[in-house]
């Protein structure tokens, strides 16, 4: 029983990482821009956050540093694809490769560093409930904030004026431009928001999830987060559910290893990646289903007339 509670708790934790990044990419993609640089941004942000906590001792400062790093890299990407109209795929790839190189280079001397003692969070009262307390109420505050954020984001995109403008820009930038909306600035804002959230996810990984810094530690989570936006057909609540599914698969792997299941660890490590491929294939099977939900201008350059 307790085992299961811990597995649920770990799943929420792992899912949070993916969901934060993926919601950021969702906002990003709603504006019609796809940023394949998620992995690179998360790596740099993980390093920035980690270094900041090492020097200041404050987790909060680490999160802010991670968000800043993510937003800054996203801004470079944004200027290139939005104003210079470079190919979005190639530029995103460049960002991923550059981010991996930069973080490995700048972080080389931080590999041995340790963070100050980690605090364990729990909600007073609720966390004492047997099973449920262990499963749901001993999470980092960010986990609960994320759930509120998801609800708010859904409302914002469907009801708020600014949210609808963002979607309009992503669906048809030419029309949005004709109506007088500053398409490029809106897109840059969306891209930088995406970068900031990817950065937050990266910092969460190096500060809370696995509190350390190692080269390449994001291990494909940025790419899985990118895939998640497609699974979720660009809907925030589905992103959350998808993230929990993948968090669960990731955690199941550690759980099975812990249980001493007679299977090579490599097969288990493969699980989240294989699961991503399988689910992606199943969801994408109907092209119309994807096309109906996908921002219509996704990946296409916009030239102002």
């Amino acid at each position: 029983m307790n085992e299961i509670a811990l597995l649920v708790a770990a799943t929420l934790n792992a899912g949070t990482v993916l969901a934060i990044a993926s919601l950021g990419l969702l906002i990003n993609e709603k504006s019609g821009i796809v940023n394949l640089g998620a992995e690179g941004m998360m790596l740099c942000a993980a390093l920035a956050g980690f270094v900041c906590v090492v020097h200041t001792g404050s987790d909060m400062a680490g999160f802010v540093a991670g968000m800043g790093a993510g937003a800054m890299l996203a801004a470079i990407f944004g200027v290139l694809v939005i104003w210079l109209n470079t190919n979005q795929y190639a530029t995103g790839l460049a960002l991923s490769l550059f981010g991996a190189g930069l973080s490995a280079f700048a972080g080389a001397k931080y590999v041995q560093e340790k963070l100050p003692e980690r605090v364990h969070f729990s909600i007073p009262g609720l966390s004492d409930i047997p099973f449920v307390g262990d499963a749901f109420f001993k999470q980092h505050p960010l986990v609960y904030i994320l759930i509120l954020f998801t609800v708010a984001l859904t409302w914002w995109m469907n009801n708020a004026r600014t949210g609808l403008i963002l979607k309009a820009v992503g669906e048809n930038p030419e029309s949005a431009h004709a109506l007088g909306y500053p398409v490029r600035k809106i897109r840059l804002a969306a891209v930088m928001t995406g970068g900031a959230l990817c950065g937050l996810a990266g910092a969460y990984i190096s500060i809370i999830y696995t509190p350390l810094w190692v080269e390449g530690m994001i291990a494909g989570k940025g790419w899985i987060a990118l895939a998640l936006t497609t699974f979720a057909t660009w809907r925030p609540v589905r992103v959350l559910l998808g993230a929990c599914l993948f968090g669960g698969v990731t955690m199941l792997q550690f759980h099975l290893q812990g249980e001493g299941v007679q299977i090579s660890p490599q097969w288990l490590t493969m699980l989240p990646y294989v699961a991503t491929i399988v689910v992606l294939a199943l969801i994408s099977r109907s092209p119309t289903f994807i096309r109906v939900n996908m921002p219509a201008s996704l990946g296409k350059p916009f030239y102002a007339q």
Partner: protein
Amino acid sequence: MSLASPLLAIALTLIIGSLIFIALGKDPLRGLAMFFIEPVKTLYGVSELALKATPLILIALGLALCFRSNVWNIGAEGQFIAGAIAAGGVAILCGTDTGMWIMLLALITSVLGGIAWASITALLRDKFNANEILVSLMLVYVADQLLGYMVYGPWKDPNGYNFPQTINFLAQTRLPRLFDGLRVNYGLLIALIAVVVMWLVMFRTLAGYALQVGGLAPAAARYAGFSSRKALWATLLTSGGLAGLAGGMEVLGPVGQLTPYVPVGYGFAAIIVAFVGRLHPVGIVFSAVLMSLFYIGGELAQSRMGLPKALTGVFQGLLLFALLACDTLIAYRIKWERSV
């Protein structure tokens, strides 16, 4: 025009690189010398350069074909690993009294390994409409774990003190060297032949032309009756095969066994090689040499200047950024305007 952009991008990368050296308190001239002069000072250095350029050329050739037809295979690293595993399998399982033909068999197997790995992506794209960028990339991680499984498990060297590595391959399975005392091997010749063949395919055959029309103008390709499905399969399997061959030649050449450290990112670096080489076979040769200079320069900067080897990755990323920006800045004139 098409040459100006890469040259300008290289210049930009060098300028930013110098600034990085200055920021780190190192002499920028000495730093740049590590990257562009030290590697080619000796014959041995040139041989090492060619050795690193070989897989980059092969992989980038395939990727260029993919990118030209708008198929985004970015999982060449995984196809490289699959090829390495396949070639390694042949090399491990062959008997001690086998002849040199086994090396050819191992190379062919590596091509098939890469093709098989790429075919997963092609199949899922074709039948399930799954995004090839994400699928091919996820498969890199899967291939990496598969390699790990083989060298930690069934193929582990029984006399290897429990290290995750296979036996050292027998001499007859190894790619012969071109010259005594230098590590460069016949793989370089194979890569150069591939350059010529790819040039012919791209610019002198209808099939190659059809692939590219699909990338430039999908509607025109449909009207001409060029199948986009065929283009998908043809480009993915070709690039998979070439990446697999690169992996096979890497383990049968300089490495000589399978270890978890066989993949060093050539599959990703080759994406940059392909773009900087203008997706042109001849351009790819030059950009592969440049990229090898970055690799060797990074190693030298580590051993002689105490800088992290990852400097290579920073330079590679910068180069691609600079190239993409230069492409636009050369083709278009900037006009500053209010709003928009």
